[in-house]
């Protein structure tokens, strides 16, 4: 397994008894994220037993079923709480949480900000497709204002959450935003997120053309990938734009990187101190 790359490598890590091809729609970015996650874990040289993938409910929840690591499929919005428990019990395990935007910012919004505040050493991959894809295309907290969905047929009137700003404000240790079009960068971000101590968030913009695209003038998956290619630019270039141009573009890159020690490290240090003192 040393010299493998690309698809060969990914096939080594898949559970081939789980009815492939997977359930995602044709052109869904979730498959690309799955590949990226596998490449990142292989790139870091972690063994299958050292990694735990926790997933919530939604399209992204299926991701955990396909990979041959320790995996947990949890209740809606509570993926981070399960992950917190796993990390506290097994601090040497690399816990990776895969959540959708509804899972992480709607029903699990509370857990997201508190996991960031606690700085627990898990890595959260937030697969943001701007919509509740699995349940029929209802608007989610990240549906951009003015865009259309099943429940907002005349246009969304509410503002949307900016995941990166939310997590930065909640003091997460590592905050980055990548897309499924810029895969090499995404690999790097996930690797950094896993190896950085403390809470890491990687927001991944992934297209949902089935529910979001066809209501918003992106009829095919290819249209959505072209949109990602055009609209998402590097943060350095984004900073140089005028205010009017900034509204049309989405910055991607690493927004916050700190190396504060995580909660589990502090906890075990405290435990050692108490036992030593007694």
């Amino acid at each position, binding site marked *: 397994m040393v010299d493998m790359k*690309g698809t060969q490598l990914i096939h*080594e890590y*898949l559970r081939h008894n789980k009815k492939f091809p997977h359930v995602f729609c*044709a052109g*869904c970015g979730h498959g*690309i994220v799955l*590949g990226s996650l596998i490449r990142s874990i292989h790139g870091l040289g972690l063994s299958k037993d050292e990694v735990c993938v926790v997933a919530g409910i939604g399209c992204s929840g299926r991701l955990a079923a396909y990979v041959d690591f320790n995996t947990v499929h949890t209740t809606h919005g509570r993926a981070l709480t399960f992950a917190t428990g796993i990390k506290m019990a097994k601090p040497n395990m690399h816990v990776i949480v895969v959540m959708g935007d509804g899972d992480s910012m709607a029903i699990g919004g509370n857990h997201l900000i508190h996991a960031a505040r606690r700085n627990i050493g898990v890595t959260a991959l937030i697969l943001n497709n701007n919509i509740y894809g699995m349940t029929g295309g209802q608007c989610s907290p990240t549906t951009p204002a003015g865009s259309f969905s099943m429940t907002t047929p005349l246009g969304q009137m509410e503002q949307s959450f900016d995941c990166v700003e939310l997590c930065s404000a909640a003091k997460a240790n590592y905050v980055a935003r990548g897309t499924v079009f810029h895969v090499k960068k995404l690999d790097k971000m996930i690797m950094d997120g896993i190896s950085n101590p403390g809470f890491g968030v990687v927001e991944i913009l992934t297209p949902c053309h089935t529910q979001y695209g066809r209501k918003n003038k992106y009829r095919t998956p290819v249209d959505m*990938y072209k949109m990602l290619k055009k609209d998402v630019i590097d943060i350095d270039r984004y900073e140089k734009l005028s205010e009017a141009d900034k509204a049309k573009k989405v910055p991607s890159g690493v927004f916050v990187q700190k190396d504060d020690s995580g909660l589990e490290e502090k906890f075990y240090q405290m435990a050692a101190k108490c036992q030593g003192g007694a």
Partner: protein
Amino acid sequence: MSVKRKGNSTVTIFPDWCKGCGICAAFCPAKVMELNDQGKAVVVREEECINCGFCELHCPDFAIMVRPKVDDEIPAVCRAVLEKAARKTDGPAASGDAAKKAASGKQKG
């Protein structure tokens, strides 16, 4: 250590796994892939492949494999997928629709 030169790589598509999203055909810089009448990707100009790896990285279904031509050995896991597709094509037990799909992918690929 991959050399980005034309004609040095083999492109394999697993017809069973391809869902026909068209990402590979739309973005391939050398236009190696095209969609067939079933809507699935097939390799039409393999000699043009410059081994950039775009399709391999961006295929959401892990259905494309690009390998150097000298490397003959297909890893066991991938071989199993290909063999399954071949069985469907050859075997008399295969149901009509699935067999046709697999066959069309196979012939052109």
